[in-house]
């Protein structure tokens, strides 16, 4: 377990900024409950600082995970967001799409959100923008999505 390097931090922030924009500061700057980013093997964790300090006493090989896993670095150096990060990302999401109940299951089975299933969408959402998809009762669904051109144009 170690802190992130310059490049790694930049890659992580670039990915997070797709979904939460400037709200990343809310993740970094938490004076009441300080958190930090730690990397263990190739996975990035968002950890409470006190836990991170305790985890230093565990050997690297024996440490499986700590805190919340945000995602992983691929071998080519790209960062992939994991679904475990949804809790933190959904809290601070910048652009949102609400899907009607009849469109939830098709979306969760991997289909696109069709125009008929879109209940609401944040204003001024640009095309090809990362959004978080919610059900109509504000439950974040288990995926991140990219809003297509038509969805933006027609809504």
């Amino acid at each position, binding site marked *: 377990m*170690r802190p992130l*390097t310059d490049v790694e931090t930049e890659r992580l*922030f*670039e990915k997070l*900024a*797709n979904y939460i*924009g400037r709200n990343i*500061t809310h993740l970094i700057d938490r004076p009441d409950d300080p958190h930090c980013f730690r990397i263990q093997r190739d996975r990035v964790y968002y950890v409470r600082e006190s836990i991170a300090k305790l985890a230093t006493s565990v050997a690297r090989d024996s440490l499986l995970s700590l805190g919340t896993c945000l995602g992983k670095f691929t071998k080519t150096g790209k960062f992939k967001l994991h679904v475990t990060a949804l809790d933190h990302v959904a809290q601070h999401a910048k652009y949102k799409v609400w899907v009607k109940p009849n469109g939830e299951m098709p979306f969760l089975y991997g289909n696109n959100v069709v125009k008929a299933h879109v209940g609401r969408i944040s204003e*001024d959402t640009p095309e090809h*923008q990362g959004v978080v998809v919610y059900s109509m009762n504000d439950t974040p669904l288990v995926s991140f999505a990219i809003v297509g051109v038509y969805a933006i144009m027609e809504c």
Partner: protein
Amino acid sequence: MAPIRGASKPTGGSNSKSTIKKPYARKKPSTAAEPAPKQKRKFVPKTHTKAGVAVGNNKIKKKDPKKRRLADLAKLEKELPKLNMITPAGVVQPKGRKKGKVFVEDKERMMTILSRVNDSKDGQIQSKLERSRQLEVIRDARRKEEDARYEQRKSKMETAKDAVRNKRKRKNDDKGDGEERETPSKFIKKLTSKKKVSFA
């Protein structure tokens, strides 16, 4: 002359010399007494060899072999031309910097990285929004143009229809001057009625 008493005559032979005691010879100190400390001779360096050749200054201090080696190396380095050195770009690391990965642990550095990322992302989003706004404007203009064209076509059609109506009216008016005016029902009847041919 009477011989000296106690003085032994030389008996002759090979060891006669050693036994002869000369009256002027120094007496050896008794064995029981400690040997007197020898006076140290002052070392005087030889200036010439036995053969008479002048000797050089032998009093050169011998240096520590390591230092000597270093000095030799420094001398060699001075003598070597500068262009002969190979310094691969990847290997040379500036002194005084941390080896290995540099971690981002303080909040300020994290914030600077964040601001850099945010600026680039904001720029991208702004350009996207700007482009979509421009496209919207173009789309609006095209729609308006289409509407105008449709209106124009419609009005043209209306005028044409009016012209046809007026023309027909005028014709009817001209006919109605001399003859009896046909009622519309009669006109329809006239159109629908077929000519009948009867054979006598």
